[in-house]
């Protein structure tokens, strides 16, 4: 029996649909040529990055100038202010840049699993890149299921900033109970009980207080080796959340929210720590550069984040993440692209130059030890945190954003008092994360 015309038309559309949805999947990564005779024919490669500010762009251009001097036959054309979704769309459309840089590690699992970025292990082997130049923790956020599809280019570490004047000579806290005591001592209220100066804002909604950062204070675990949620089963999360809630309750949730919402923009000169409205704050190493620019007179110090009272061994470490860089699939000039990636991620001179300009932590151990690296006591704290073996990161996970979002949502409910049963709340978090894992990654 002959198929009817409409059946043929539907079949054609279905074929079209399946063809369209697999766009860009047929091209595997190009085989690296590194190690063979280098091809020095002039080539122009494209690079997308997310830098926007003038000082960042200048620092990056300076680093690229070093690359041009070393590889004069490779011309690099850069595009600024690019986000992850643009990289994905370009790779999907089969017209990606040769090199792409991302400021977040949240998409690494997706990048590696879907092949948006090429596996760099063959390139690393061919170029004999020694992985021991990177601190061990970096491997957790630059690879997924044994596939390293991105390299680290500079790192961010998180520690505690404290205002010496507001602390009135007190030493930075090393434990959560010390942090609570000092936070209370340094808090100033008006006659109506409104907060004028907060010793510390414990809310998970405060700038850098997201659980991804504060979890390192208690050594909390996110996931099990099979990718399922470890949150409900790890008492560290309960320890952290109970400590936060106790301190939030001391301030009064409504008073604390009113104060939090009156604070200036985190990324401007109106940042409350820089304005002396908060005595202690969790923040990244970049704050040093911002203080140097916008709050020159601020008398402050830095220290590792306080840790759980019963886990003193964690002190000195912190949370680590960073900028990542890789070669999207379908890149037209993979070999030249690899030279650029290798240069920006392993060349000590390039990393030191970028670190000195951007005040981010260089991501290799040799760069950390370079005498050319500008150091002062406040920045040194973050270099030490980076090198500390108890520092941790959020391992790459296919649902990284969803997992963080689900826990943070639960934290907000908990600290506001809108969810009184912490066990049930975290069990719900586990269920949501596990269900989502089945949806996106299968059993």
């Amino acid at each position, binding site marked *: 029996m002959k198929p009817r015309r409409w059946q043929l038309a539907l079949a054609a559309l279905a074929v079209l649909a399946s063809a369209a949805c697999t766009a860009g999947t047929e091209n595997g990564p190009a085989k690296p040529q590194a190690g063979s005779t280098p091809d020095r024919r002039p080539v122009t490669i494209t690079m997308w990055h997310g830098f926007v500010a003038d000082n960042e762009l200048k620092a990056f251009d300076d680093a690229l100038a070093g690359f041009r001097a070393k590889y004069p036959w490779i011309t690099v054309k850069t595009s600024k202010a690019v986000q992850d979704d643009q990289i994905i769309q370009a790779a999907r459309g089969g017209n990606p840049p040769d090199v792409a840089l991302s400021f977040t590690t949240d998409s690494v699992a997706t990048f590696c699993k879907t092949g948006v970025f090429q596996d760099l292990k063959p390139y690393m082997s061919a170029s004999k890149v020694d992985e021991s130049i990177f601190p061990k923790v970096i491997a957790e956020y630059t690879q997924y299921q044994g596939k390293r599809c991105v390299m680290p280019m500079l790192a961010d570490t998180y520690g505690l900033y404290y205002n010496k004047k507001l602390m009135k000579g007190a030493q930075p806290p090393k434990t959560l109970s010390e942090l609570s005591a000092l936070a209370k001592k340094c808090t100033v209220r008006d006659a109506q009980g409104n907060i004028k100066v907060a010793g510390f804002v414990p809310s998970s909604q405060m700038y850098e207080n997201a659980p991804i950062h504060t979890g390192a204070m208690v050594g909390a675990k996110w996931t099990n080796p099979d990718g399922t949620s470890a949150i409900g089963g790890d008492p560290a999360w309960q320890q952290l959340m109970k400590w936060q809630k106790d301190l939030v309750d001391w301030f009064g949730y409504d008073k604390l929210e009113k104060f939090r*919402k009156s604070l200036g923009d985190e990324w401007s000169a109106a940042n409350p720590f820089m304005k002396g409205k908060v005595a202690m704050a969790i923040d990244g190493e970049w704050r040093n550069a911002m203080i140097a620019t916008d709050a020159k007179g601020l008398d402050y110090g830095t220290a590792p984040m306080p840790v759980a009272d019963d886990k003193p061994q964690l002190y000195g470490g912190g949370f680590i993440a960073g900028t990542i860089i890789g070669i999207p699939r379908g890149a037209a000039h993979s070999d030249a692209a690899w030279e650029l990636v290798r240069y920006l991620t392993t060349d000590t001179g390039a990393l030191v130059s970028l670190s000195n300009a951007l005040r981010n932590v260089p991501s290799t151990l040799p760069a950390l030890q370079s005498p050319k690296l500008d150091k002062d006591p406040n920045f040194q704290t973050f270099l030490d945190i980076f090198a500390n073996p108890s520092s941790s990161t959020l391992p790459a996970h296919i649902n990284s954003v969803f997992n963080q979002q689900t826990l943070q949502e639960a934290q907000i409910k908990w600290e506001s008092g809108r969810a009184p049963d912490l066990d049930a709340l975290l069990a719900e978090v586990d269920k949501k994360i596990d269900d989502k894992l089945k949806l996106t990654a299968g059993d």
Partner: protein
Amino acid sequence: MATTTFGRRGAAEPARPKGRHRGSLVALLYLSPWLVGFSVFFGYPLIATVYFSFQRYDMFTLEPVGWLNYRYFLQDEAAWTSIRNTLWLVVVMVPLRVLFGLGVAQLVTKLKAGTGFFRTVFYLPSLVPLVAGTLGFVYLLNPGTGPVAAILSAIGLPSPDWFGDPAWAKPGLTLLALWSVGDLMVIFLAALLDVPKQLYEAAALDGAGAWRQFFHITLPVIRPVLMFAAVTGVIQTLQYFTQAMVAARVASGGTDSAGSVFVPGYPDQSTLTFPEWLFHQGFRDFAMGYACVLAVILFVVSMVFTLFLLRQFRGLEEEA
């Protein structure tokens, strides 16, 4: 015996004049831009969406998963919360906007002086870009630094944490929608000015007061316009996205730094709308197969709503 073989059409069927074929072809030719556009931008995406909804699709690879995405929808609490929120907006925000728009238009028609000025004043907010308007509203209603809180505090009244309290977040968005009611006001104004004056004069002679005139003359005459406002309002609200997203992001104080994720629907998913959840699934979590399930559901619900309202609309036309 001589036999005659006939074509499929049969001998009895008269031959179609050539002109009719040509006419059909010409008609198709004229229609072709629309047909191509419809097929490429509506037909194909619709079929592809249904197809993807049965796949695990991360924007690169496809894996058939049968009904898995649909089963996940049934247990996805956030999706159901977003449906409840969207329905709340349809049930509360749309009627309020229609009533408020009608009220403002009615007031403007009654003005003796300054009509042009007030028309402009009420219409202008609807020209403000959605993001800018929402940012302005979140600032005005900020419990810490907003002028509304300061005024309420000065007269001894407590100020709610509008976009930070789940109980107040949707009313806050409704206020924003009422502020920008100018688009509806203009339509109602035109409809009100179109009501024949003689009807009011006759009713006044018969002793009908303002309310009776409104209910027995104005409303029946402008009913088609009201229905139009309701239909477009419902469809727009089913796609409500920008204001909810911006308000939640700003009110949460979330940053764009690496490691800081945005919690959609802040606070406690009270502003999470269905299209927003769809967007997050597809373009933040890369669960495009599941996002397609949500898109299919949105399409079906929108069609049902539209057909229902259009049927009501047709009934009104027949009555008229």
